[in-house]
């Protein structure tokens, strides 16, 4: 039986409190709820449940174009097979305390033909393993301190590769305010950092570039267990919720929290056949598209 990897970042609990990396303004809470009190004055209930309240942009989730009010695709109508596709993993683990991930670092690791020779709806997704997920829940401040992807890299993805979505094991593809405040203004008091934090979402240029092109962004993956020699596989990133509208009025859903699993490409003769099928897929696509 082959190894299947769970790339979903866990919701970490400390007693009743949720402790995951997040902006201070974002809320997440978990409560235990008792139903049908059996005896007044006690905490005896017929059955127990939980209530979880969170912003959909927390934890492992896919950012949708609606985040910036681009509504080119109705998220209610995304077919389920959109979320099941082959993935390429780019290993770019290093120290990210200072420098953002640049195009030069990944150019040699990505073959554009693997994307451009397929119609866009058939293209694989591109996952970046930065190594940041080792800080998830262990050092949330450090996890939040991520310098992002350089503009040239984001533009390379948006205009040359055009995958349906990309994924990353970090808080964002853009430089976070925590990174800016901690790296540039280490001696400034917290109040000033909070003032800066108010501007947090005005600088999401990478998001803007990708989402305008309908390239979704899968953030906060947990890729710790993915070995360095695994670079291809099947990604299944299923949204936790399925929304549908009962009225004409559209509802803005800006992100889809996901459960993500990854199946590495088979080895041996089966893997060889998968690679041949991939070649056949390119040739057939070239004929019909």
């Amino acid at each position, binding site marked *: 039986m082959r190894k299947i990897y769970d790339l979903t970042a866990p919701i970490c609990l400390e007693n009743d409190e949720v402790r995951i990396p997040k902006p201070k303004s974002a809320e997440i809470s978990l409560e235990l709820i008792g139903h049908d009190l059996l005896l007044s004055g006690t905490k005896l209930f017929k059955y127990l449940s939980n209530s979880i309240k969170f912003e959909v942009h927390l934890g492992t989730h896919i950012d949708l174009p609606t985040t910036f009010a681009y509504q080119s695709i109705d998220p209610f109508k995304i077919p389920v097979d959109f979320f099941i596709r082959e993935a390429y993993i780019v290993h770019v683990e290093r120290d990210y305390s200072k420098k953002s991930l640049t195009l030069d670092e990944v150019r040699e690791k990505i073959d554009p033909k693997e994307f451009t020779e397929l119609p866009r709806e058939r293209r694989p997704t591109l996952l970046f393993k930065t190594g940041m997920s080792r800080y998830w829940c262990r050092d949330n401040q450090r996890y939040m301190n991520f310098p992002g992807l350089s503009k040239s890299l984001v533009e390379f993805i948006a205009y040359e590769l055009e995958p349906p979505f990309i994924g990353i094991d970090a808080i964002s593809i853009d430089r976070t305010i925590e990174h800016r405040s901690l790296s540039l203004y280490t001696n400034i008091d917290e109040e000033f950092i909070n003032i800066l934090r108010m501007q947090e979402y005005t600088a999401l240029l990478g998001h803007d570039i990708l989402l305008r092109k309908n390239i979704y962004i899968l953030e906060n993956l947990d890729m710790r267990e993915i070995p360095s020699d695994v670079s291809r596989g099947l990604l299944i990133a299923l949204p936790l919720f399925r929304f549908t509208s009962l009225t004409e009025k559209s509802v803005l859903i800006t992100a889809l929290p996901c459960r993500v699993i990854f199946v590495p490409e088979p080895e041996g003769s089966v893997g060889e056949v998968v690679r041949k099928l991939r070649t056949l897929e390119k040739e057939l696509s070239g*004929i019909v598209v």
Partner: protein
Amino acid sequence: MMTNPISKRSRRLFTHFKALGSPIRFLIIYKMLDGRPYTKNEIVDYVSVLMGLPKTTVDRHFRTLLKYGIIKIAGKSIRDGEKGRKPLLYVLAVDSLTFYVNLFTYLLEGVTDKRMKLIEKNLNDIKTLLNAVDDIKLKLYLVGHEVSNEVISNLSKTLDSCVPVFSLVREAVRPRTFVADCENALELLSKTSANQIILKKISPDKMRELLYVALIESNIPIEKLGSLLGIKDMSRLVGYDDLWDVIEVIHHNDPTTILTLLTDNAKCTDAEASYVINLANNIIKYFSSSITHHDLIRLILTL
């Protein structure tokens, strides 16, 4: 409302068999779809009578289906107690992955065996194959280790033989590789000039446009193009319109003559090489954007 007795999946499979151009195999499966076990003789009798074919012919198709696991020995016939065959749906339920991989192999082999006639008839079948690729790939990812080595080996061999064929068709329909040197450009122009199917697609106006665009792109003097096209009196050539007027008179706008002259006269010097390369690539672009798939496939089959 009457419900359709044939499931959606079965109808899709029927399409596969129809696409293979074998009504005999189609009919065998259709007969067996009711879920009852049949003997081989029952099936052969039924189909041969219905289609007016020799039993040996039907028997051959029956054995093909058996070879690929599309039908299997699965029980006794109600009629005479011989070994019977159960239909497609039964096989699917027992070992769907092996069956599906076998069917896929069978379809691909059908494609190569028939020298692309399948595609020539109906490009929609390519879409069906593309869907099958998706299905097989997904299944191999998830449960590929459960497929026998023999089945994987057969699929691998089939892919080895059919991918180059599809590659050829794809290159004709959507060329990825353009001509890069003078020799290849001349070869393409030569083959084009010798192929009536393709020449019929180049109208005199289009020929005029193609020659003109290559002239602009390669920036060669008009006199040079004139000499390539066998025009001796250059004194009247001021602009391209003048050149075309002469071509109309002496070559009657005939693409065959024009392309033959070009391939005969071009010497692959820098300027001439640039012209023929540009012309060849513009012809490729024109073919890929304006000629039907059907024409292109016929073309590459004749090259």
